[in-house]
């Protein structure tokens, strides 16, 4: 890991009326690092993700992204065109509900090809080959390349969404509860797949989850949020094995042992 962070946020604040969704939040992600944000519902996890990815503008604070040449860019003052370009090349976003991230009226192959076409790929055979390869990588039978995502199971849809996001080899992927709404065995397979892909591609991932087990499996570092504040952060094993803050202790204690 290099010393310059890929994405860096300082002093982020955002209020929804009287509720502080974000209260002076700072975060850093380095290339190739997986950072998990855990916390209960309403603690500001998803808001933080949306602010960091430029979808939502904070009331105070700044988010800086460093491009492959090492030039820093302020995410919230870069303009819509540049932000879109970033979102379809360098960044990826995996939604909790695959229906938000997929085009349900377009075949699996078309879904995977969309980001490639948006960045200028104009060779049908090449797009087909990339789609086949990625279907294999996410363990979907490549013969279903022309199937509509609506015909897939929930777990397959989520894997398709991951293939569609990773096909352009982004440097940074935002994931909002990627295992939410899936049953336990499917979750385990998905986590396994994610862990393999993240290691193979050297991705930096910002993972929002309330699933402590998922965080332990995937993340290098962990941030615990409560009421819009980061109450504790550190290496995943350190935070989970030796929680300092009382809320983290509660969180770790509430995990059901199988």
């Amino acid at each position, binding site marked *: 890991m290099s010393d310059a962070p890929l994405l860096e946020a300082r002093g982020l604040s955002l209020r929804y009326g009287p509720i502080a969704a974000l209260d002076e939040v700072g975060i850093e992600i380095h290339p190739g690092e997986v950072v998990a944000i855990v916390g209960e519902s309403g603690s500001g996890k998803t808001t933080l993700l949306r602010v960091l990815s430029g979808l939502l503008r904070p009331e105070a604070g700044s988010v800086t992204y460093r491009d492959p040449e090492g030039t820093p860019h302020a995410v919230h003052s870069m303009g819509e065109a540049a932000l*879109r370009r970033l979102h379809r090349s360098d960044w990826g976003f995996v939604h909790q509900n695959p229906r938000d991230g997929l085009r349900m009226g377009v075949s699996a192959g*078309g879904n995977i090809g*969309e980001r490639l*076409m*948006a960045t200028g790929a*104009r060779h*049908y055979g090449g*797009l087909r080959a990339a789609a086949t390869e990625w279907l294999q990588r996410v363990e979907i039978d490549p013969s279903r390349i022309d199937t509509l995502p609506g015909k897939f199971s929930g777990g397959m849809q989520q894997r398709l969404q991951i293939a569609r996001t990773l096909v352009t080899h982004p440097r940074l992927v935002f994931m909002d509860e990627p295992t939410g709404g899936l049953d336990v065995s499917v979750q385990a397979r998905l986590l396994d797949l994610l862990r393999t892909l993240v290691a193979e591609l050297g991705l930096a991932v910002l993972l929002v989850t309330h699933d402590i087990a998922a965080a332990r499996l995937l993340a290098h570092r962990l941030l615990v949020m409560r009421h819009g504040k980061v109450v504790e952060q550190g290496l995943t094993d350190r935070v989970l094995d030796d929680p300092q803050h009382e809320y983290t202790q509660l969180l770790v204690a509430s995990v059901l042992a199988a």
Partner: protein
Amino acid sequence: MSAEAGYNFGYLDENTKRMIRRALLKAVAVPGHQVPFGSREMPLPYGWGTGGIQVTASVIGPDDTLKVIDQGADDTTNAVSIRRFFARVAGVATTERTGEATVIQTRHRIPETPLREGQILVYQVPMPEPLFRLEPRVAETKRMHALADYGLMHVKLYEDIARHGHVAISYNYPVMVADRYLMSPSPIPAFDNPKLHRMPALQLFGAGREKRIYAVPPYTDVRSLDFEDHPFRPVRADAPCALCGSRESYLDEVVTDDRGGRMFVCSDTDYCNTRQAAATQEAAE
């Protein structure tokens, strides 16, 4: 011919024409970009060419010669009535000859005879937005045009090839104008798309119901979208014209009886008549 009393020249009042001309100037300055304009009520229903008529009324002058075609034909109801309309309210000369016309209003075709500098081709456009079947939100399509974010259109072409083995768009085939704006060429057959590219004549597009005007200035690059390994191919019925024998022109299939009889004839009546007359003359000599 003189114009009927009681109407302003070209039916529209001068202020409306000025407003439309301003929109036209902007459209010519930004090729392929859709410019909103205050479309007026015209004495015919939306969908019958109100946009084209308003554009024609704004650019036509007393010395112009007007030709109107509908699906390539000069003698169909819509073409005849629009031609008569302008003969009445503007008193301009009308013609069926492509070469003699200075302003040509068209629905669904580009004439076979190549157009030259100084001519104006006015298209009647039902739906100016090329993305409307793919993205239902107008605000979002505007954003996509502003950011030149056209990946979605290629997804549609990809889906066509995946399902049918070729791009299954036979008319209204989307084009890129001057490498910047995605544009609907109006429902002309894909066969006519290559004629848009670097045409010497000025091309104006009017959509009356949707209240949009756009333009392709002379000698502008217009490219049909395609893939490197699935290049754009104009489609034509594989037959000669039954009347003039042309193997180059775009053909209409005409059912002649209820026992499966059919014939292929040129859709451009002026082109077909000219060729037939030339053939008759040759035979007589």
